[in-house]
């Protein structure tokens, strides 16, 4: 079972590495969206500093969502997904491996770039560190919740827009606690509570989301 987990994970990472442009686009999307906000609202440092956590997090939500159709899309098209379902290994474990690969390719780069963007918005060292930590805890939640939406919309008409409709409302708690952690640090109240809640949400998602994703995949392949 562990071998299967590693194999699926390594395969997804290798495939993504060979088609780098695919996941690099959503990372550049993230950078561009964040950079547009100062142009829209004006360059006052105080305003930008208060907006920074929210803007970075909303952009991260959108970028994570944009990369979702690829998680199962090509595997569904070429029949790999069917083979995965037919293997004797539990589908939940394989799904978890795929989501881990998705997080490594879409979530981790966002977390790594976000501190630079935070500095552009005038955040200081402490809040930037918290932003990084919050994104590291929050983006796996985004991948796992988004995976449910991706699996439900497999092969469905207009799945790109539909996925946004399904997934974005469910992202609300992650957005609130993620941005809240940074804001709390700026305000001086400490981010421990928010980060703990994000971690708790991540644990719940790790336990529940693979089941929902696996069930949705089986339905899509019926």
């Amino acid at each position, binding site marked *: 079972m562990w071998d299967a987990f590693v194999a699926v994970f390594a395969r997804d990472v290798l495939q993504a590495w060979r088609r780098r442009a695919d996941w690099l686009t959503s990372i550049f999307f993230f950078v561009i969206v964040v950079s547009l906000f100062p142009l829209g609202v004006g360059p006052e440092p105080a305003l930008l500093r208060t907006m920074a956590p929210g803007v970075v997090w909303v952009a991260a939500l959108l970028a994570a969502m944009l990369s979702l159709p690829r998680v199962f899309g090509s595997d569904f098209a070429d029949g790999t997904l069917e083979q995965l379902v037919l293997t004797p290994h539990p589908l939940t474990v394989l799904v978890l491996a795929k989501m881990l690969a998705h997080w490594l390719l879409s979530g981790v780069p966002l977390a790594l770039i976000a501190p630079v963007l935070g500095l552009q918005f005038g955040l200081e060292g402490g809040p930037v560190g918290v932003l990084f930590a919050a994104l590291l805890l929050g983006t796996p939640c985004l991948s796992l919740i988004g995976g449910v939406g991706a699996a439900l*919309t497999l092969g469905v008409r207009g799945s790109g827009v539909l996925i946004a*409709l399904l997934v974005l409302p469910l992202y*609300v708690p992650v957005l609130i606690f993620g941005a809240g952690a940074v804001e709390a640090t700026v305000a001086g109240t400490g981010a421990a509570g928010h980060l703990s*809640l994000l971690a708790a949400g991540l644990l719940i998602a790790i336990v529940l989301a693979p089941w*929902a994703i696996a069930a949705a995949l089986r*339905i*899509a392949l*019926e």
Partner: protein
Amino acid sequence: MALNWFKYSSPQTFYPLAGRLIPVFAVLAAVLGAVGLYIGFFVAPTDFQQGEAYRIIFIHVPAAWMSMFIYLVMAAWAALGLILNTRLSSMMATALAPTGAVMTFLALWTGSLWGKPMWGTWWAWDARMTSELILLFLYIGFMALQASIDDPRRADKAGAILALVGAVNVPIIYFSVKWWNTLHQGASISVGRSPSMASTMLLGMLVMALAYWMYSIAATLMRVRSIILERERNAQWVRDLAGAPA
């Protein structure tokens, strides 16, 4: 004789039963609605703080109750359909969604109408309003997902999973929005419950809630009948019903 619990779980037997039940619930809804509105508009005393404008709560509060309750009922039917693989349960979930969405929209709409004279603003990012708005998004997502899948069986199951994921998330969303709200907002607006409510007000609200309940049941049964006819259009009993040659 053992009771046959599943007699009405078949669309064929449920269809005529629903047809007989609809008038009962529709009449109850109309009568209770008339009584409730009469109590609300003529019997209940004027609120000393809010004046006459508070009377919108007789429309607003039951709608807000129903919007949340219907989501739970919908998720329960969807789960039943997923577990027992009964067609009718999934149809009930599908039929409930539009009513729930309407209730959510009504709650938001009347809430903003009430907010303007009371708070001086149509919309505030209050915890309840925000979570109600997200609930509306969840309903819309559920309906959009089902509408975009052509195969009804797959649409049922996919919708069921989404409804269940949503049901797990609704409390999390509610509390996250609540904490977010207390962090952000000062004491400019508080939607705290008024300390005491005249008993006639409460009575009016409860009667209106019952009226909404009856209306929701009647509307859902009507919709489920249409869904049954649409899905079972190739079944012999539907052909007989329509008087078409076999």
